């Protein structure tokens, strides 16, 4: 059910080709699979292992280290409430408490309708706009309890569909290197000489 789709395999191969060694594409490909399925499935990890030539265990080994990868189904929207110092100083604790009440779940839980997962999060680099949260990694700033309620109502009514893609979608824009423009990645063992613009015979001054 959840191997990468044909469309995503094409994308995956393009991503793999950008790196001098295939395994470097592992994390981007796990993101791609999460974008497709909403979470990281075992089938997807097996498929990624085939694509980058490692064992499925290595894919799980790497992926399980990272916070953003979910190995169980989560809500269409993952709401991360920041709990680190700057937000804590300006009401993150109260906001989290309110969020739990509003959604009827404890931090870490998913609402009964499967729409929203609430999670405590560490610093989201929006410390001047405290307290802040992210919905599928899109920031919301200076969130009051009333703002939170309005946001949840909007999410449930589908009003934020254009602004916030479903969980797993990292960027709505992707990098694409055109064939005629790209230099292409070379395996490091296949490189012996310095790049063309560095004068070859006269090495740089000793530093």
């Amino acid at each position: 059910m959840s191997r990468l789709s044909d469309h995503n395999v094409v994308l995956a191969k393009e991503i793999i080709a950008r790196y001098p060694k295939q395994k470097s594409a592992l994390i981007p490909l796990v993101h791609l699979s999460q974008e497709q399925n909403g979470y990281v499935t075992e089938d997807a990890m097996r498929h990624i292992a085939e694509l980058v030539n490692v064992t499925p265990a290595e894919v799980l080994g790497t992926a399980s280290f990272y916070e953003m990868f979910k190995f169980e189904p989560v809500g269409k929207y993952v709401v991360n409430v920041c709990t680190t110092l700057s937000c804590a100083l300006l009401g993150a604790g109260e906001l989290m408490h309110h969020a739990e009440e509003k959604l009827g779940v404890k931090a870490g839980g998913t609402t009964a309708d499967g729409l929203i997962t609430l999670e405590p999060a560490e610093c989201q680099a929006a410390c001047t706009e405290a307290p802040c949260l992210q919905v599928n990694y899109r920031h919301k700033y200076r969130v009051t309890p009333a703002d939170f309620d309005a946001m949840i109502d909007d999410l449930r009514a589908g009003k934020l569909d254009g602004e916030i893609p479903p969980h797993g979608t990292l960027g709505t824009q992707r990098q694409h290197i055109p064939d005629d423009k790209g230099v292409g990645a070379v395996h490091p063992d296949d490189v012996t000489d310095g790049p063309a613009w560095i004068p070859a015979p006269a090495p740089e001054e000793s530093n």
Partner: protein
Amino acid sequence: MSDTTPPSNSPSPSHAPNAVTHSYIPGFYIGDRPKVVTSRFEYEDSYTLERSLATDGYEGLKKCLAMSPQEMHDEVRNSTVLGRGGAGFPAGVKWGFTPQGVWPRYLVVNGDESEPGTYKDRLLMERDPHQLIEGCLIACYAAGLSQCFLYVRGEMALAQERIATALNDAYAAGYIGKNILGTDFSVDIVLHWGAGAYVVGEETALIESLEGERGMPRLKPPFFPAAVGLYGKPTIVNNVETLANLPFVALNGSAAYTAIGTPTSPGTRMVAVSGHVKRPGVYEIINGSTTFRDIIYGDEFSQGIRDDNDLKAFVPGGGSAPWFVEDQLDIPFEGKQAGAAGSMLGSGAIMVMDSTTDIPHAAYTLTKFYAHESCGKCTPCREGGTWLMRMLERVVAGHGTDADLDQMREVGQTICPGEMPHASSERLGLEAVPFPYKMTTICFVGPSAWAPLHSALTLFPEEFDAIVTKVPKRVSIPVTALSGADA
């Protein structure tokens, strides 16, 4: 709630900023000071190629390509652009550490900004991705780096999107790729997605992550990334802000750069001020001379403490940094002086706590962060950080004893043996212990779990004493005595 303007029903009335100069960049305030990295921020479309080209974008690259790589490298070395990721090491010197004649060499851009309180690389990536790309190209040209990987923190969706678009536009326009601007300079820049791990901000962990591994730091010395880095090849790891400085240096020359700031800290610096101030914000300040008092109380910066409360403490350089108090307000934002006073500038994040702050709880939010983010490689950090967090959790909840405080200090000593840096305090009659600390871990995550708690315990002992139960000291009974009794 909105992404552009603060709501009128903000939790604290004094928290709402006055005079929002650029409402499309929440939390950023432009000033009449010299600008190196935020010169385009006044334009709402600052992230587009069109705006970049209309405002000297890629002109620095053109000047760079007219020079030899060695000349460009010398310009950067003479400008003394200091690394902005935390360590403050000069970029031009770092580039010089690559071994002669070993190829290929790589550039890895550290855009995994996650230090608590820090919020500058995200703005630089979201608001001016072309400036960053230009900086990457200049670094690659000067140091002979044949491929560039732009590692952006996974949680920064907007930055990812803006950079992806900028890269696509720059490729199409011939600024990246084969034979850039008709020269023999050819380099690919690859956007890489992080996936949520603070420790990956450490440069060797970043390289591990880029190789598709768990983001755990590598043991160094003996090998630093400049010698043995990505795929075992020489690799330069530079912070986003560091590279964003390079177009200015290439375009205007190192003399124009060093004319700003002080000899030891030239140029400008992005500083994020958050917490209990009237106008929390990100400011591009003159490096080296602007004092903490200017930044926290100055009209053009954060305008003082909310509700005109007294200052209790502030974090001067990101969550890892030992804390400062009122006594340190007149120290300039300069590495050596902050170090002598017992802390560091780190990633340029100031977090301000006013007189209403519950200090043990504030320390808990930071210690929890580092305990959570430990990668698990080094025991003192994996176990010690978690112990500290659990004991502190108990203390904050009101169930702690003074034995917990002693135990915390003992665990702290295991992570950072010897004297731990801290600020001076006239109130307590304390002398400063200068930075840095000794550490039993590979990277700074472990010490960072202890540093804020140590500062809190040292500078505000009465707040801990007030919430713990005094228990009689336990007396250890020697094992020999017990066995003697049995026999």
